[in-house]
């Protein structure tokens, strides 16, 4: 019966009411505050949200009006989202670290009438651009610190708004009015607008409706068997689809508990304390964790270090097989069991991964070795492929059927097809209704039969798992006609801890070559241990021993490329190590740390010329921006190495 109720609920407000009714005593939200995990049950949250909704309504928030949500993950901000949805208003979460200008753009574009913010910092930010926001009527803040002396005509502490609502709700008339509003909420109402952080141009507002969001969340909750006993750490940005989907939507559907960390600095510690059962992190985070693990282990005693590496080796051999339920010799199982005791479980414990049942990563390609590393420890890490426009999920790897280099088969109820050019198109239950105030863009993205163009190039492997190789527009061709997916190659390189960034070139050229940025932490550590003396980044980057080390990495990438029939032509023929770190301040990276290939190619033109004219080294002078904003130039002579090329693997061996 409860299941029926849950299925019938087509808005988040109804889901919330449902949760309060069937699991009112279960924890819904936690927040590490004042030293302990303050906890609210579903019933308490429901009460608070009702009060907040009435309070907001009293301030004048109406059906269909937009309310911006700005701040870190705080229960009260999530409640504001719920309260707005309860009223039929449209929450518009904004990245807390957005600069005032970006914030002003989103708030103005979304025509927000209200803003619910975390603290003084956000209040100040909004006040600083208030002249661009003539529609903004009221601001509500969570943390009163420092705001005492502000003009409070249009500024309200959230606690007060809730208290006012509580007072009003004592009137049964108001309560039944609210019940009425909730019941009148339709699944087809807009439930949220999520602004994407586009790599190019202004961000677009992705409009999602309640019924679609909930439908999608139901599918994935079933898919991963999530239930009310699960816990998640809500540390992803509020404004990102990942947080809204994985934590908020799934949380309301499954009824699990969302825990908000104390602050960004303590997130790792909080992760360890909470020990979530469902976890998501982008590959970058997993990579950082692995790097830290390896660096910390280097400081361990010899014996412990050897033991660690031995058992990591054991895990590599057997771990994934055991996780996938494949056959493993008894000896292997025993060794793995010992490894669990000595290494894997303690390691997962200190990382806070002990209780994870399902973990996902997405956003960009994850290095297969990195992916395998975590899986081999017994962590059920999976990949998914998704987009804001899909309300996240398009494909995901089911338990026990993991292929590291794919993103899995389509999710239930998701249709996928490939265009002639290899672009991935999909239609999904959670898909958006359009971009806010931008029909043109919406039309660009949608096909006539209602599929969404992802802009990614990919193909299905024989098992039906989707493999994404690159942005469709980025995939190039070498002069000999073979495929050149730069990002695919770069990702393979970046998996090595020594390599921080890589930029591959090859489109309309004879062969592939690339720039490499070393990772100062990892290589610096290595240098220290091996008594390699260096005075600067530049010196370290140009050190022959460092070149040797990187050469080995590149060689390995070539081997793995050679093993894939479609990619064999894209092996790296020549590479160089850049004398400076690619930097967002110099415009070489986007603010989200993605390489701007075109800009780099232009800026380092002499180096590219050298890569393709066969010379052994090249001179380069570049302008740089120092940390304090001053500009200067650095010049260097950069060496170039030639690599060995492996023959392509034969597609199918003769029987």
């Amino acid at each position, binding site marked *: 019966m409860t299941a029926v109720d849950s299925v019938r609920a087509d808005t988040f407000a109804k889901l919330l009411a449902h949760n309060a009714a069937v699991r009112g005593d279960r924890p819904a939200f936690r927040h590490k*505050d*004042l*030293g302990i995990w303050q906890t609210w049950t579903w019933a308490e949250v429901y009460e608070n949200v009702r009060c907040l909704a009435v309070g907001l309504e009293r301030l004048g928030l109406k059906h269909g009006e937009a309310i911006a949500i700005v701040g870190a993950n705080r229960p009260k901000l999530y409640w504001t989202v719920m309260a707005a949805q309860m009223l039929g208003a449209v929450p518009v979460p904004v990245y807390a670290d957005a600069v005032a200008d970006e914030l002003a753009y989103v708030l103005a574009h979304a025509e927000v009438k209200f803003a619910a913010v975390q603290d003084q910092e956000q209040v100040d930010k909004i006040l600083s651009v208030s002249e661009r926001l003539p529609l903004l009527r009221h601001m509500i803040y969570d943390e009163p*610190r420092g705001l*005492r002396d502000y003009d409070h005509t249009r500024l309200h502490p959230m606690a007060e708004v809730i208290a006012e609502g509580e007072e009003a709700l004592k009137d049964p008339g108001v309560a039944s009015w609210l019940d009425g509003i909730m019941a009148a909420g339709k699944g087809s109402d807009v439930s949220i607008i999520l602004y994407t952080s586009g790599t190019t141009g202004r961000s677009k507002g992705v409009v999602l409706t309640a019924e679609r969001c909930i439908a999608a969340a139901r599918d994935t909750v079933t898919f991963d068997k999530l239930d009310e006993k699960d816990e998640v750490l809500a540390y992803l940005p509020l404004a990102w689809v990942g947080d809204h989907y994985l934590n908020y939507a799934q949380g309301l559907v499954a009824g699990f508990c969302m825990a908000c960390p*104390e*602050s960004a*600095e*303590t997130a790792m*510690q909080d992760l360890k304390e909470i020990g979530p059962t469902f976890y998501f992190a982008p590959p970058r985070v997993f990579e950082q964790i692995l790097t830290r693990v390896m660096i910390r282990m280097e400081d361990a005693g010899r014996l412990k270090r050897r033991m660690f590496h031995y058992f990591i080796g054991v895990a590599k051999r057997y771990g994934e097989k055991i996780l996938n339920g494949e056959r493993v010799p008894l000896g292997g199982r025993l060794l793995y069991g010992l490894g669990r005791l000595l290494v894997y479980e303690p390691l997962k414990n200190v990382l806070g991964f002990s209780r994870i049942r399902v973990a996902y990563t997405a956003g960009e390609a994850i290095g297969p070795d990195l992916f395998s590393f975590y899986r081999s420890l017994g962590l059920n890490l999976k990949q998914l492929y998704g987009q804001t426009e899909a309300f996240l999920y398009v494909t995901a790897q089911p338990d026990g059927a993991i292929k590291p280099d794919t993103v899995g088969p389509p999710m239930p109820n998701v249709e996928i097809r490939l265009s002639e050019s290899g672009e991935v198109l999909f239609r999904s239950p959670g898909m958006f209704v359009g971009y806010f105030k931008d029909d043109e863009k919406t039309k660009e993205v949608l096909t006539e039969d209602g599929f969404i163009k992802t802009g990614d190039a990919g193909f299905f492997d024989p098992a039906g798992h989707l493999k994404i190789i690159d942005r469709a527009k980025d995939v190039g061709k070498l002069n000999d006609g073979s495929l050149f997916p730069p990002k695919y190659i770069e990702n393979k390189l970046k998996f090595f801890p020594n390599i921080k960034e890589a930029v591959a070139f090859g489109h309309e050229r004879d062969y592939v070559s690339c720039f490499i940025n070393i990772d100062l932490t990892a290589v610096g550590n290595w240098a220290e241990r091996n008594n390699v003396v260096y005075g600067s980044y530049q010196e370290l980057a140009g050190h022959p021993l460092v070149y040797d080390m990187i050469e080995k990495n590149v060689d390995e990438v070539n081997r793995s490329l050679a093993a894939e029939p479609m990619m064999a032509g894209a092996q790296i023929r020549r590479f160089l190590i850049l004398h400076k770190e690619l930097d967002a301040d110099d415009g070489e990276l986007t603010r989200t740390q993605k390489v701007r290939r075109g800009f780099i190619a232009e800026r380092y033109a002499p180096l590219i010329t050298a890569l393709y004219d066969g010379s052994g080294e090249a001179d380069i002078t570049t302008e740089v921006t120092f940390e304090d904003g001053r500009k200067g130039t650095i010049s260097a002579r950069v060496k170039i190495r030639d690599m060995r090329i492996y023959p392509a693997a034969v597609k199918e061996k003769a029987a």
Partner: protein
Amino acid sequence: MRAPDMDAGVTAGDVLLAVENVSLRFGGVKAITDVSFDIRKGEIRAIIGPNGAGKTSMLNVINGFYHPQDGRITFKGRTRSKMRPYVAASQGIARTFQNVALFKGMTTLDNIMAGRTLKMRRGFFWQMLRHGPAMAEEIEHRKVVEEIIDFLEIEAIRKVPVGRLPYGLQKRVELGRALAMEPELLLLDEPMAGMNLEEKEDMCRFILDVNSQFGTTIALIEHDMGVVMDLSDRVVVLEYGRKIADGVPDEVKSNQAVIDAYLGVPH
């Protein structure tokens, strides 16, 4: 002796503490000679002066650690010839020290909790059990302490023994411990000594926040003149144990005796 009274025009409230004609000697050494000044409710009062001017001794007199030979101290309307440390503390005077005087073997949390000692009532019997009322009391005070930790933004070091903390953080913990006493008068002995610029800015912000949010009256000794002029409502200047000036920062800045004292013009 030129000690012009420049009090006129500054009204921050009633007098909270008045020191009248206080003199303090150690054997034959005169540390303070006939100093009088007052601290008004809600203000930030700075005590400045060259090294050895008797500033710290003055704070020690105010909270009863030193007993002056002459003079009177009036706190909250009660006049005494000398303070006693316990009386000062229980009447609402808290302080921090020039060289951090934290309880090194205890954690940040325990240090600040120790600041709540005076407010805790449960006796030995309940303390032995650490259950029931004793635990309830402990929790009640822990909540207050957590608010302070939150206020001073030291969540991350909550359970770290203070001996392991860097100097700047120790000073912050010490401020927290003083705040835990919910003082009416907070004496800060060089709260920013030995800090880098960023830490100083943080500390200034905290001092102002304490003053404005809790309405705590603050008396502070500080060497950084910029800080003093920015922070304080009124300044008293000591030199060789005597008061040479007293007034709002701008007046004091232009006072000839003060300029002489700081530039070292011989008397």
